[in-house]
């Protein structure tokens, strides 16, 4: 997914994220629904004296929440590309950037190559001073083309 933020007219920010078919909020509802089912059954059992189901249900709920959190965290990795008059900045990370790359805008070159095969998603990269960085690694062919178009527009300003 690509989100375009045109901040000031001279600065464009593109936020690239991997495909994620459900939001954090919806996942919370999912965890809650599973928790209610498990704990409901366990409490019903406990009322008949079979309380030992409760710890297992509790452990399972904790495990479900942990697994959903890990899944969403992995899917929340972002690539933020900021283009302004001076530089192209690419940041990779979750909530805060793990890696940041600053490229001089006037020395940077954008390229997109894609073989003519349905299994090829193509390679979009930005390079400057002999160093090249792949962009949109999590995107499919159409999305990569769209990102290429957005970056060309931003660099043309």
């Amino acid at each position, binding site marked *: *997914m690509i989100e375009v933020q045109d901040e000031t007219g001279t600065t464009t920010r593109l936020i690239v994220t*991997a*495909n*994620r*078919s*459900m939001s954090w909020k*919806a*996942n919370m509802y*999912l965890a809650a629904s*599973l928790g209610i*089912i*498990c704990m409901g*059954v*366990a409490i019903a*059992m406990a009322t008949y*004296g*079979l309380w*030992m*189901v409760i*710890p*297992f*249900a509790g*452990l*399972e709920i904790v*495990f*479900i929440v942990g*697994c*959903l959190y*890990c*899944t*969403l965290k*992995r*899917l929340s*990795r972002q*690539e933020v590309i900021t283009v302004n008059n*001076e*530089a192209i900045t690419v940041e*990779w*990370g979750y909530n*805060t950037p*793990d*890696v*940041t*790359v*600053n490229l*001089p805008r006037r*020395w940077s070159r954008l390229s997109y190559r894609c073989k003519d095969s349905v*299994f090829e*998603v193509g390679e979009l990269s930005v390079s400057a*001073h002999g*160093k090249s*960085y*792949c962009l949109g*690694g*999590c*995107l*499919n062919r*159409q*999305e*990569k083309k769209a990102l290429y178009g957005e970056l060309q527009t931003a660099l043309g300003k």
Partner: protein
Amino acid sequence: MSSTDVTHHAADDQGHDHDHDEHGPAPGLMRWVTTTNHKDIGTLYLWFSLVMFFIGGAMALVIRAELFQPGIQIVDPMFFNSMTTMHAIVMIFGVVMPAFVGLANWMIPMMIGAPDMALPRLNNWSFWIMPFAFTIMLSTLFMDSGGPAGGWTLYPPLVLQMGDSFAYVIFAIHFLGISSVMGSINIVATIFNMRAPGMTFMKMPMFVWTWLITAYLLIATIPVFAGAVTMLLTDRFFGTSFFSAAGGGDPVMFQHIFWFFGHPEVYILILPAFGIVSSIIPTFARKPLFGYDSMVYATASIAFLSFIVWAHHMFTTGMPLAGELFFMFSTMMISVPTGVKVFNWVATMWRGSMTFETPMLFAIGFVIMFTVGGLSGLMLAITPADIQYHDTYFVVAHFHYVLVPGAVYSLMAATYYWLPKWTGNMYDETLGKWHFWISTVFVNVLFFPMHFVGLAGMPRRIPDYSLQFADWNMIATIGAFGFGFSQLMFVYIIVKCVRGGEKATSEVWEGARGLEWTVASPAPYHTFETAPVLDAGTVTR
């Protein structure tokens, strides 16, 4: 700024995580130990379940050999009881469940356009726990006290009289439960979070739907089973009296708690089979699945009803009339959504451009023979009738019709259907058809006579029987050996296909639809690393 400036804020590199092997399988045997690839893990599950199928099958042959004639013939009664118990545990937890999980691993990511399962490392653990647990479980057969012999239902007080193997069996059951829960959570997380753009819930293939609902069933019931077996353990070793009448407990309570898990478990064993058959029949009828929406709702209805029918397994323990009526009618209600499914499969075939390749033969065999098992299930739902049939071979005939020509046939159909996609080679169609027809003849020779001896009153789980049951038992044993040995053909066909054969195309089957058929055959080690985009016209089911 005149030069490139790179800042590493954390020990990670650009936008890639390394939870799955980046460039292909690792060389050597360690590939299979350390793999996090969903296809590798699916393959491991499937081979494991095939091996366990022959172990559980060998146990069945011991049982049938003993029952070939009346009288104690080959094994002592204690070992016979161990065989009936272990045969059930192996077939349920070691064959059918892992095989369905294997298919889920292989197919669900490809069907929804995901690169892998949501939690690949967890996936590896969920598989490798199982051989460990089954090694412990099977090793109890070699202990001085013998293996578990109280039946797979583990009813107290009988099960509490088991020898030293008891604790090992409970330990193994806990590990199998952990494996199932881990697999289920992974499937739920994958289906909810990793569908390709455009893959809405009502576009998902039926196999994905049935597995999603199955995962819910597992998540809801496994803690109950874990709690139940732990209470057995504390009753035996820590002086509690949950199920001991002498200490104020109630042994019948265990039956309630066990079947609260056990009946949904029955649907855990059959819902994915419904999904498989719903994939295969449209392909070979060359028509879309009739009544897709009703299939989804019927599956969900069956899952819901499975929680409120458990006491039909225990009518003879005695319960209030209102309870008997409730559980009788709720059980009968399950036939409504199940009937919807059977009707939809038949309607899909109706006036279809049908061809009868091996997967289709197994799928049609499933529809017919599963319905036979379903009808005898309806008979067992009738409380006064059930009181007569209870613990007879009629019950054995019923659940074997549901599980062998039902669940196991669906697994064989799935194997033939997707084998070209997995291996890139077509299997031997002639041998496949022979496998189907020989299996179908023998499976009926094996299980159909059990209806007759059951209705005549032959009790189950007894190594000896009255003379009047001798002829049908002899016929059933012939059927058992015929069916058992015909499965060697299945192994031969699989191995032959893995080793080579006519090359399969991407689509494999003319009428196949869905994302898994858009990738090459054999499916590349990594598929859909970037999500495909589905528009409104894309057919995915």
